[in-house]
């Protein structure tokens, strides 16, 4: 338990550093938010009063701690471009992006783990080589292009879904999950190739170890040795990679949302970057940072469970 507490504490410190860096970086950007909101014709008095209203006339440190205090309570301030709170803008988009992320994570594991194990089990056979070649090509496909290919193949040619036909979960959960399968697949495919590759090579590396030879010499069947002994040891680097992949998937979702026309976090992030709507940008970055850091924390904990030798 001490291990977990220590990790949680270090996560909180990391989040604090991220928030400080992000807040300061966005405050130092040249350009006046009040000026961009009122236009160049605004009078100096109007600008000053808006700056005061937006709190921009106070010192940076004061603004940071005020922002931090309300951010912890889930209030990220007001959007510059829309007269809405940032929290209300993000609240219904976040679940969509998180669904996409977790869905692709599940697909990735379903695709890569059995194939990787199977290819390693059949090492050197023709089927192993075929898997390797397909894998190498898949790895080189960027997620947005895999999204386009999936739209072309499954959407246009096979008519399995309507391109751009996103359905909200409130209207029809089954159609929502049916549609989300394809963007999730687009994110999962290139990543699956990497997981497969990693699992394959770590399984093959385990084969040469002494304990495997010992297990065979005691008369174990090859299946028992493979699934009972080697798989657990080989899964350790794969788990680390899965944690890193989870972080990458949120970046993947932002791009894939554009390909499939999904109204998630990605779209608000992009329009906010283009409109220089910094409170929204900062809030989304902080949310993503939370997801990334929490997923790293989970990996560390799972790591410890799988391999008790990991030091505190």
């Amino acid at each position, binding site marked *: 338990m001490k291990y977990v507490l220590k990790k949680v504490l270090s996560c909180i410190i990391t989040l604090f*550093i991220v928030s400080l860096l992000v807040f300061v970086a966005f405050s130092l950007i040249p350009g006046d938010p009040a000026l961009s909101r009122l236009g160049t014709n605004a009078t100096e008095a109007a600008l000053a009063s808006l700056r005061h209203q937006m709190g921009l006339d106070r010192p940076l440190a004061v603004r940071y701690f005020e922002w931090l205090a309300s951010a912890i309570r889930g209030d990220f301030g007001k959007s510059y471009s829309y007269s809405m709170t940032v929290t209300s803008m993000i609240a219904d988009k976040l679940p969509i992006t998180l669904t996409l992320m977790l869905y692709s994570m599940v697909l990735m594991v379903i695709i890569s783990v059995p194939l990787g194990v199977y290819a390693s089990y059949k090492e050197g056979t023709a089927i192993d080589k075929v898997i390797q070649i397909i894998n190498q*090509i898949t790895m080189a496909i960027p997620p947005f292009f895999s999204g386009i290919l999936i739209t072309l193949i499954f959407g*246009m040619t096979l008519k399995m879904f309507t391109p751009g036909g996103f359905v909200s979960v409130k209207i029809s959960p089954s159609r929502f999950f049916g549609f989300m399968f394809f963007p999730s697949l687009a994110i999962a495919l290139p990543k699956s190739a990497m997981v497969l590759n990693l699992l394959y090579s770590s399984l093959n590396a385990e084969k040469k170890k002494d304990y495997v030879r010992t297990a065979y010499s005691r008369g174990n069947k090859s299946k028992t040795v493979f699934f009972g002994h080697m798989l657990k040891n080989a899964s350790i680097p794969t788990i680390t990679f899965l944690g890193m992949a989870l972080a990458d998937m949120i970046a993947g979702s932002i*791009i894939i949302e554009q390909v499939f026309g999904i109204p998630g976090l990605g779209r608000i992030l992009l329009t906010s970057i*283009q409109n220089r709507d910094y409170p929204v940008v900062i809030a989304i970055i902080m949310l993503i940072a939370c997801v990334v850091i929490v997923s790293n924390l989970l990996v560390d904990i799972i790591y410890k469970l799988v391999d008790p030798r990991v030091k505190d």
Partner: protein
Amino acid sequence: MKQKKISFNLILGSVLLAVTLVPALIGLIWTPYDPEAMNSSLKLAGVSIRHIYGCDNFGRDIFSRIMAGSGITLLIAVGTVAFGSIIGTAIGAFTGYFGGIIDEALMRINDVALAFPSLLLALVMVSLLGTGKYQVMLALGIAFVPSYARIVRSEYIRIKNLDYVKAARLAGASDLRIMFVHILPNTRTVLLSSVMIGFNNAILAEAGLSFLGIGVQPPDASLGRMLSEAQAYMFTNAGYVLFTGCTIVMIILGFSLLSKEIK
């Protein structure tokens, strides 16, 4: 003597890169058609002898645009990797060699930065720096610094206690001389393979940013920018999307096959 087998990866990788990079290099000085020349009678024209990849929504020759676009994509990738690896190496060398509080603080920030997907880091940078090809180069370059810094730092920590470094110090070599004349050349294998991987990541990240519309801006055409334009017309001219996308896949596959060989 056993004859060294010429590897399949090496051949395929070189062929893929030749097919994509040679046109890109030629595209810097000559393209069959002006990549910007519009022709309304050729809007979304299919594949033909005169336009081997067909034409885009403005009747511009897609092959010429891919030649020019690959050039910009590669230029950005080279700039990004150069910036990221030089700054990253310098930071990694100093922190790894000297250690101490600055090392601790920088590595803490580095860990945070590394936890972020590089595309998101680049997104943050682009929103700070603005869009355009030089901004993208700088944004991606900065986003790539942490990974190089970490790799080089761990190499320096490993090497700085080796006997030859101690010998150099006894002979009176200065810290800077030991860092850059004695240790740096011995990090080359690690550095080279991470430069190759970084090159691929840079191509992917640039394509991703431009695809999102916040990377390279018109009239410049990068492969990612073209792909996002092509996406709107994939129902009328699928060739546009496929030729552009496959060019990206071929470049990345080529580099990853070659980097596998170098390892």
